[in-house]
């Protein structure tokens, strides 16, 4: 059961949050210009790596804000949280 530091509310129990999968997958601005393969890449393909992963979380039972989380999936340690639109921390790349 993680403790997640919501950038708007502070540290809260995981049960207040829901996970939204991999972060920084931008919806294409012009989907109609894309081939089936390119669209499928956006739609279906996710990394799901063992190690440092950038993911989206929503404070569902709190402020309802979406934000980003850097999590090491091998030990579940959350290394960083930052708001939507902010640049991902460089040192984990």
């Amino acid at each position, binding site marked *: *059961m*993680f*403790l997640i530091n919501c950038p708007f509310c502070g540290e809260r*129990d*995981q049960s207040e949050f*829901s996970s*939204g999968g991999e972060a920084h997958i*931008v*919806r*294409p601005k*012009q*989907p*109609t210009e*894309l081939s*089936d393969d390119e*669209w*499928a890449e956006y*739609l279906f393909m996710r990394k799901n790596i063992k190690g440092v992963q950038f993911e*989206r979380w*929503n404070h*569902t039972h709190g402020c*309802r*804000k*979406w934000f980003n989380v850097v999590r090491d999936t091998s*030990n*579940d340690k959350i290394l960083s949280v930052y708001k*939507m*639109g902010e640049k991902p921390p460089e040192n984990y790349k």
Partner: protein
Amino acid sequence: MPNYRIHKTEYIDETKRVSFKYDGKTYFGYEGDTLASALLANGIHLVGRSFKYHRPRGIVSCGAEEPNAICQIGSKKDLTEPNVRATELELYEGLEASSQNCWPNVKFDIGGINNLISPLIPAGFYYKTFMWPKSFWKKVYEPLIRLSAGLGKSPTEPDPDIYDHKHVHYDVLVIGGGVSGIIAAKMAAKNNLKTLLVDEKKILGGSTIYQNNESIKIDDKLSSEWLKNEIQEIKKLNNLTIKTRTSIAAYHGYNFLLAKENLTDHLPEEKKKNKIRQRLWKIRAKKVVIATGSIERPLVFNNNDRPGILLSNSIKKYLDYYGVTCGENIILFTNNDSAYETSISLHKKGIKNIIVDLRKSASSELIKQAESLGIKIYFNHVVTNTFGYRKINSLEIMKLSEDGNTTVGNKIRLSCDCLGMSGGWTPMVHMHTQSGGKLDFRDEDQVFLPKENSEDQISVGSCNGDFDLDNIIDKTVNKINKFLDIDNQDYQDTNIICSKENDKRNIWLLPNKIPLGKTKCFVDFQNDSTAKDIKLALKEGFRSIEHVKRYTTTGMATDQGKLSNMHALGIIADTAGVKMGTLGTTTFRPPFTPLTFGTLVGRNVGKFFEVVRKTSIHEWHVENNAEFENVGQWKRPWYYPKNGENMHDAVQRESKAARDSAGILDASTLGKIDIQGTDASEFLNRVYTNSWSKLAIGKCRYGLMLNEDGMVYDDGVTTRISENHYLMTTTTGGAANVLSKLEDYLQTEWPELDVYLTSVTDHYSTASICGPNSKKILNKLFPNLDLSDENFPHMSFKEEKLENINCRIMRISFTGELSYEINIESKYGHSLWKMCIEAGKEFNLTPYGTETMHLLRAEKGFIIVGQDTDGTMTPSDLQMDWIVSKKKYDFIGKRSLYRSDTIREDRKQLVGLLTDDPKEILEEGAQIVSDVKSKPIDMLGHVTSSYFSPNLNKSIALAVVRSGKTMKGQKLIIPMENKNINVTVSDTIFLDKENERLNA
């Protein structure tokens, strides 16, 4: 009756005699006893039959690791509890316990025949034998296995006990109240850290609390006396909470732990009443100190499972703590020094005992002490066999060869009535590994140890592999100072004297002259797995410890292999010729000891099981005899039976009334999202498939929402209330998800849009009145409202007052009839409804429920998202291409609508079905085929909605069928269990294709 209680101890209150029943017979013990200690005091060792071979089994241990002494408590249908360890159950007046897994009784057990045919029950027996013929499984094998196996009986009625949950936060949690845990808790609490100390036992002190050996002293006192003083000290600390009878069940990430506190299990029946039985503590701790100690290992030799064979240190605890001796002529078989403490304790109390030590020789304070007391020691010897059916009566020992691989010389037969075994100590690393910690293997004494301690978790004491008392205390103090970043000096000058173990020798599977195939060297007592089974599994090709474990069922019983896992690993390593440390261990999964379901669910039972949402009109529905349907958390009226009608009759009546005159539906549960902002129209354009820019103020429009994969996600009518203000409705079940999805897009993809979303589902109640007379009823309620088609046409919206209360009225229809939805603030919902009913009386206004609503909309071919769709249907699959804008550049899911897969022509598509026999009603979910002769039968689709329509006087159905769009008029077959039903593919709209009724 024999009495094995031979001396008084401070932990047994001999002034308080307690009577209890075991297997129907009454016995006596004392307050302070466990069921196990009381049974042993009465000379009872035999407590059950083994799982597979039904061999007689006795009490082995004195704690949570007990594999044999598990019993059924009580006999009441609602309160009986199986699998309770007698070694943990505190004795109370009136306790009724019985042995498990033996029929007809523990002394004569019919399953014992399995013991005689045991060569026929090898590892993987169940997998190999009961596989075929398949028809035998249900009628022969399963009942047979269930009758003769089975571990206890479940209660058959709901548990009447009260359970509780509690959330707590601490700076430091210390698990285990032995010597190292007590030191850690004291150091933390004295440094102003809010500390919680939990221990599973009734009192603190671990195994040191009954330590009475002269060679182990702290500050010139017996270690037990010193520790009692420490316990008095910590009880005075303000920052420290001490919870005894509390065991940690699970250690989750981020130092979130679950603990079970036992509050009444030790109380007599009448004192349990109306009290909380168990409490589940949900603990968040900044730092966790694991001080869970270690458990003694058995030794694996032939017939090591007879009643009267116990762990050596358990014999010591029964003697020194409970005042009970496990025998009068005891042999201790060991590979380490700790059995010598047991021997000396027994000797002091006048119990005759000898030691068989497999080490070639050994020297330490303890051994010198034993030798000087004249205790006979056989070094370099092993037990090769034991005798006695219901209890051990003698054994054979032999000398070990130089390399320890075999035995040499003559057998020596020794008589005894009890055998203590000590194969060394296994650190309890369960908590460490549950928290995600890794393990190291220490070859010297063959133990797994916590590999590294993280910044928020540390192991101290013998669970960290420190076994000698001076080591335990010194290392605990140093580690805790560092871990908590404090500088505690309390133990600076503590003077510790203890015996040091100098000699180690371990053999996982002890040698024997008898071939292994003819021995019974038990590794897992509870699941009856032997060394032979493990070797057979290896021979058959199993290599991974996880596979061997499952194939032989070693470590898979209710004790989770606390006593057996290490030996299984050791035997595998030795047999496969690999180093034990490279094998890894099996995973230690929570709970550490079994939890009751009651503890897990706490107060969330009965009406607190799940949240129930009721509309403001709910009480009226109850008063008017509604049957309810659960839709998500909502209770919705399903139908309103009158004069004993069944569901079918009620629905037929309601449906007819709605089309013939007027019907009324509580539509309050539909999701309602208030959308405001200068970009609200643009936002709707992006989330719905159709266009919203040109929707006039005061008008309503139906919208279909897709997922990005092009599949239909939700639908509903949205009303433009003013220039920048819309009210969206969603399906009842989809409301929360739709809001989340819309928020997601607004916050992450389109933050530039000026749009605000508010859920107003609970804020408004909705009465939906439909039918040809609905306009007349509206007119009675709102006499000043111009209801003409010119002023208030279909798909439009008006605001009007009802006795000064503002109402939002939409003329929209989900039934195909002329229809109005009246929305009012929820606090007025009940009044509004009653006024509608009153106004509708002269028109036979009939309340109808969800079933009639579903029927009416099916007559019109309107889909229900989630019933006619399942996340794989595109708008085109639903024959709803008309709602997909061709002009819009983009909306959620648009690009997916022309992926190669979504444009396939043979997708499953929505069609209507008419049965050849108009009275025949199809089953929803039934499969659809065109040919029943070909094998395998090609499945074309399934029925999604099916009703008997009273307005059409025939059966109608909606279905999804492969290439259905092109199949109108085609004959298909619905194969059922007893017959094939013939159907014809039809249009999806069965009634009023021209929409004339909307303007009736």
